[in-house]
């Protein structure tokens, strides 16, 4: 039997260890790089105004749906509305079935991207699932509530 292909025991262990480390470190570095470029950042309308994301990059937009801004397009499934946080406003367009708790004046998180012309195209709208659930990102939306009060 050909044993010359077999390594010495301690060499084998070392080589296996090195392979495992190289692959795992490689995976870690790859992951780190991919996370930085592919993670979806969270914006409120003021952020969009001050430091807008690149056109077409997947981000999330959170805020309050401005009262009176909700309009349904003639196709019956596309809606236009404005998300605001008391300081700035961002127009949003969404095609699809809106989640149940989505009404004017309520909080919303939209997943999508900024398009040319400053309109946010939403692929997905997220609503609350629990009466006491406030998404952590919106915990400092005191300014939003402020603004809402002023529009009353």
């Amino acid at each position, binding site marked *: 039997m050909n044993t010359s292909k077999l390594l010495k025991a*301690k060499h084998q*262990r070392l080589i296996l*260890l090195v392979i495992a480390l190289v692959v795992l470190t490689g995976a870690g570095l790859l992951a780190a790089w991919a996370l930085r470029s592919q993670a979806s950042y969270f914006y409120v309308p003021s952020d969009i105004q001050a430091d807008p994301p690149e056109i077409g990059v997947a981000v999330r937009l959170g805020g309050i749906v401005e009262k009176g801004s909700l309009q349904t397009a003639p196709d019956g499934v596309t809606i236009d509305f404005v998300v605001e946080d008391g300081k700035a406003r961002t127009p949003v367009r969404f095609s699809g079935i809106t989640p149940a708790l989505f009404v004017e004046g309520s909080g919303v998180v939209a997943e999508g991207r900024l398009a040319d012309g400053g309109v946010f195209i939403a692929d997905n709208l997220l609503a609350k699932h629990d009466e006491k659930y*406030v998404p952590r990102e919106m915990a400092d939306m005191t300014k939003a509530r402020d603004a809402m009060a002023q529009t009353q």
Partner: protein
Amino acid sequence: MSEAPAPRRAGLWLWVPLAVFAGFFVLVMTGLLAPADREVASAMIGKPLPQFDLRPAVPGRPGVSTAQLADGKPRLLNVFASWCIPCIAEAPQLEALARQGVEIDGIAIRDRTQDVERFLDANGNPYQRIGADDLSQVQMSIGSSGVPETFVIDGKGIIRHQHIGDIRAEDVPKLIEKLREAGQ
């Protein structure tokens, strides 16, 4: 011939998993400790109530409106619901406050008349007025994000204090103190 022991360098690598776990632990600790306070305090404290006018939630009590709340007398505004369990826990405290002469108005959110009636029958009715806020719109406009929450409103309709969560026995004196301050 005895087998060679694992090279000493390999010995150091054995501690790598532990180091990785330690890193995870630190990361997660900061995540846990940092936003320890998940309560969303209202930015409305010191601001006047927004304008609203809620229809009565049950027959037998009038609805709640901003105009009535600014009639010169400080009062408590309690946000509750028939399906809210901690609201049951605070019912005795509300009762105690009402017996001491405190005026309490209620806002029932996302509720049905028969359920609110059932809740009041079972737990007592300390409210002078109860408004129905079907979509939580008024609740959110006054800066409340959950149930139960209680606000101290002064005679001019300005929000002076917010109590988040159910009112425990030890919270009662503080609320009375806030009401007294609001009256000055």
